[in-house]
């Protein structure tokens, strides 16, 4: 076995072990308690603009097939205790053929915008305990 292959083997084994350890620690996100609520990301609106979820529920943002313009999903503000805030925003824009799913485990009020069209496109998500 070459040195490079040995290194790959060690890495794979370590990753596998770390995965097992993470499972033992219960680190992965909990499974959503129900089907994700679908939100349309359309030319110049989120539909619906308001949603109420139970803790642990998810939203699946789906970009409309008829879109002409690029849009993103960006968390403008969220609960104070929210961790990993950046993970609630997409990194890129999309016009169509795109989805973004996120599970909400922290109760509170979330405000989302499209940074490309911030005055037209905004939505509020309320997560209850």
């Amino acid at each position, binding site marked *: 076995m070459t*040195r*490079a292959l040995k*290194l*790959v083997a*060690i*890495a794979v084994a*370590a*990753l596998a*072990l*770390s995965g097992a*350890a*993470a499972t*033992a*620690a219960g680190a992965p996100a909990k499974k959503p308690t129900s089907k994700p609520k679908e939100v349309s990301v359309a*030319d*110049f609106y989120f539909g619906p603009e308001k949603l109420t979820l139970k803790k642990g529920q998810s939203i699946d943002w789906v*970009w409309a097939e*008829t*879109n*002409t*313009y*690029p849009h993103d999903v*960006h968390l403008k503000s969220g609960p104070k205790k929210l961790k990993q805030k950046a993970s609630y925003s*997409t*990194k*890129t*824009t*999309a*016009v*169509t*053929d*795109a*989805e*973004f799913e996120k599970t909400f485990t922290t109760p509170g009020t979330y405000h989302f915008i499209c*940074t*490309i*069209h*911030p*005055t*037209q496109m905004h939505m509020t998500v309320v997560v209850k305990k």
Partner: protein
Amino acid sequence: MKHRPAVFVLVPVLVALVGLAIQPASALAAKPAKKSKATVFEACRHGCHYRTIQKAVEAAGSYAFKNKTAKVTVAIRPGKYVEGVVVDGTQRKKRYDGMTIEGTKKDPKRVVLEGKNAKGELGAAQNGIEAISVDGLVLKNMWARNYESNGFFIHAADEEGQHCNGYTMNNLLASGNRSYGLFAKHCLGGKMINSAGYHQGDSAFYVGETPCDKKNWNVYSNTPCQKKPVWTLLKNDKSYENVLGYSGTNSKYVRIIENAFYNNGAGIVPNTLDSEGYEPNGWNVIERNDVFWNNYNYFLAGSAFHTVSAGLGELGGETINYPTGVGIVLYGSDNDVVRGNRVFGNYKWGIASFSGPGETFVANEGNEAKNVNNEIVENVMGREGADPNGEYDMWNDATGGGNCWGANSPNSTFAPGNGKVPLSQIYPVCPQAEVEYASKSVPSINIAAGLQIASLSETGNPSTILGYAGSNPPQNQQCTWVKRVATHPAFQKYKPVEVAPKPGEVTC
């Protein structure tokens, strides 16, 4: 509970093991080559350390972050790269400002960014290259094709901390992208030069939403958007067989100089829409371009591409689509200069100008799409009779104010409308005194001349702009095209391209 201590011990050990395993792999990487002034990160399909452009870009971004004064270049060797590259200037511990991403060969077709089957963060890869909040990015010598959104897209959001101060897109090719080829939005200045685009579902070149000095600027404030304008340059570009050759929604301070726009649905179209910020478009210079044969009826089934636009708005229940068969369109423009262009062989109109009639037109609710203070001068129309534009060389809807026409080629033709308003009022000669945008004597609607709309109850008259653009079905726009010569005389090396309708498809 009893497992927890073991896990706490195990995890750091495993993380360390993973780290050890990964570190030598990095060590195997060839150190970035220093090429004269720039540090080069090379990407290629086989034989380089970076097999994707994305990986090379991220490595270069990390290196530039650690070496604050370093100039970095991502050099891409010939090949096909099935990926969507993201240059995310909002990332921590990365610096992309001033980076160059370039194909190593001068022929852009040697480095292909392929959108078909490419995957991205949200599913299908959206753009060949998307740069977010990056200053001075340089993109060169590449071909981006078949993406769900755009070929090359550089932008910033109107958000605190985001910025896009200049960019250079040079010697790029974009084709078959769903929306735009070369696309910049919310940037202060930039260059799109020596590039080409075809078969885009909107425009091959797009500059949108030029930001103003103040976030709350609007056209009614009677102050300049930018006190010291930062200009964008489009020069030596070729745009053909797209829905639009150039589109600029709410674009400002754009010089469009010495390009060729041909065989599109329409050639050069600065426009004003509610969909983007900082309305209207204006203060642009469109000069010495060749704008010809823009008669591609993409509404027909045989078109090689189709529009992604749902139209400009609705009126009387009809969708107002982009007009086709037109060379240059000023739609809701303020202080644009159209000078010294050669405009010929467009079957409907050569240069058309019109407003979005405010509250009656869904696309412009704030009445910020009035055509005011534009100059249309010294243009050579219809190749002096050899290849005339169709119905008319000049077409204006008689709205707005302060617009003027002067020293265009002597035999230019002007659409008269219903004849109730003299031509001298519809097309005043230059110079004209500037009008104030907010003035009540500067209307965005004017039915008197029968050019914008024949009457408030009639939307279907194709000699009016709203009737023509609202043709139903939309491919019927070509019903009123006028072909004044049997075939276009040869022009340089270009060939006219049109779509043949299938039987019954056009119902004149």
